[in-house]
């Protein structure tokens, strides 16, 4: 029995190895052409084009599943954020304690100034644009998805036009401004974060009134206040808020008064046209779980 030759079955090759090189290249070519066609069509057509509509329909169909997975995944994400936060918890607590002392004194001064402000505006018949938060309705929601990779600083929310959300609606958390809605479908919307390369927000120093534009910083979640004139005064620790300017029919996308962050450093070179102001946002952009979309009333 042992001496008999054994018939071995021929090893099963890779499916694609057995296919001809031509077939393999055809498949790859087809997929590449299809991808490029999708990119071109998706890029060129308007937001209500057939491809965008199909994408919105598919996204809506998948949304319940996405929300379910997000709920299951949330404890793990929270655990990750908690672990990452441990490293800076001690210094953060000390900083907050000191800040609390200062803020307690400021509240008293602010209340007095606010009353004076209301009286003066009434005297002047002052006309203003939409005020935050008075003229806005808050749509609170969770974050369901994020694009992969470092190319886009964006999040996806399960609220859309059905909830009153519109393109350019500001998005924030308790800690400050998060970004703005850049794409909206019936029941979902995409938010471009403040840390994205394409984001820019006109802002003002709450203490000194120095104006500038907040843009992404060199790395991570850092922000910079650009275009601040050298004559303007900006101090470390100053609060930076949205300026909410209005000129004729043009106005800023953001209402005045949404906190953006605090100044961490101010510098200027003789050769620079503007000051170099760095800001640290209180928002943790890497672990956003829930946000508020501001919808004008």
């Amino acid at each position: 029995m042992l001496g008999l030759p054994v018939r071995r079955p021929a090893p099963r090759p890779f499916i694609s190895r057995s296919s001809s090189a031509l077939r393999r290249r055809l498949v790859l070519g087809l997929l590449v052409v299809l991808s490029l066609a999708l990119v071109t069509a998706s890029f060129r057509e308007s937001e209500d084009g057939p491809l965008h509509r199909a994408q919105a329909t598919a996204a809506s169909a998948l949304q319940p599943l996405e929300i379910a997975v997000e709920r299951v995944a949330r404890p793990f994400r929270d655990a990750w954020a908690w672990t990452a936060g441990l490293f800076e918890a001690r210094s953060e607590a000390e900083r907050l304690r000191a800040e609390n002392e200062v803020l307690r004194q400021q509240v008293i001064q602010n209340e007095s100034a606010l009353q004076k402000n209301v009286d003066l505006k009434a005297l002047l018949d002052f006309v203003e644009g939409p005020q935050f938060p008075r003229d806005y309705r808050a749509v609170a929601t969770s974050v369901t998805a994020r694009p992969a990779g470092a190319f886009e600083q964006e999040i996806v929310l399960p609220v859309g036009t059905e909830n009153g959300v519109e393109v350019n609606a500001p998005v924030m958390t308790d800690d400050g401004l998060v970004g703005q809605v850049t794409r909206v479908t019936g029941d979902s919307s995409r938010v471009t974060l403040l840390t994205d390369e394409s984001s820019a927000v006109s802002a003002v120093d709450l203490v000194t009134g120095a104006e500038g534009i907040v843009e992404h910083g060199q790395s991570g979640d850092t922000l910079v206040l650009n275009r601040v004139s050298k004559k303007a005064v900006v101090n470390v620790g100053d609060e930076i808020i949205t300026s909410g300017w209005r000129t004729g029919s043009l106005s800023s996308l953001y209402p005045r008064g949404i906190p953006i962050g605090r100044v961490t450093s101010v510098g200027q070179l003789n050769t620079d046209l503007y000051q170099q102001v760095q800001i640290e946002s209180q928002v943790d952009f890497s672990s956003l779980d829930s946000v508020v979309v501001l919808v004008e009333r």
Partner: protein
Amino acid sequence: MSDAATITGVVFVAALLQATLFSSLDLLGGTPDVLLLVLIGIALLRGSVTGAVAGFGGGLLLDVLTLDTLGLTSLLLALAGYWTGRYAETTGRNRVHAPVVSVVVVTALVLVLGFVLHFLVGDEVSARRALLDATIAGVGLNLIIAAPVFALCRAVLPPLDRISRAGEVRVVG
């Protein structure tokens, strides 16, 4: 369950997990890419054509889930799946280090090509963030989670060589 159905299911779950969980696990400027790892696993086990098709489907699903420009991720992942599959069919065949080489090379290439593509379609992307921070951290994170992901892939998609060896044992016995 057929191979195609298993691969579809695995890619679908991986895309969902990538969009909802792994993309938010930011560490040192990078995030782990579990969908890419699953595709590398599939391509190593099933070859270039399956890898390319799975990559295209997974990328399209991710673009839909994240309301991103359709086709961008599909293109990247289809090429990644194809390259990994070709590597497994040729020089990387039966090499122990093939999975590690694939993870390092494909992750880096996907990030670099992604940067170029996003730049071409007009997205403003920081070169330093995309090419330095994200690449180094991304490759590191992918290497860390590659072992369990590949083990999972091998569990649901047994290597074809193993199937044929099982037949051989049956004949001899």
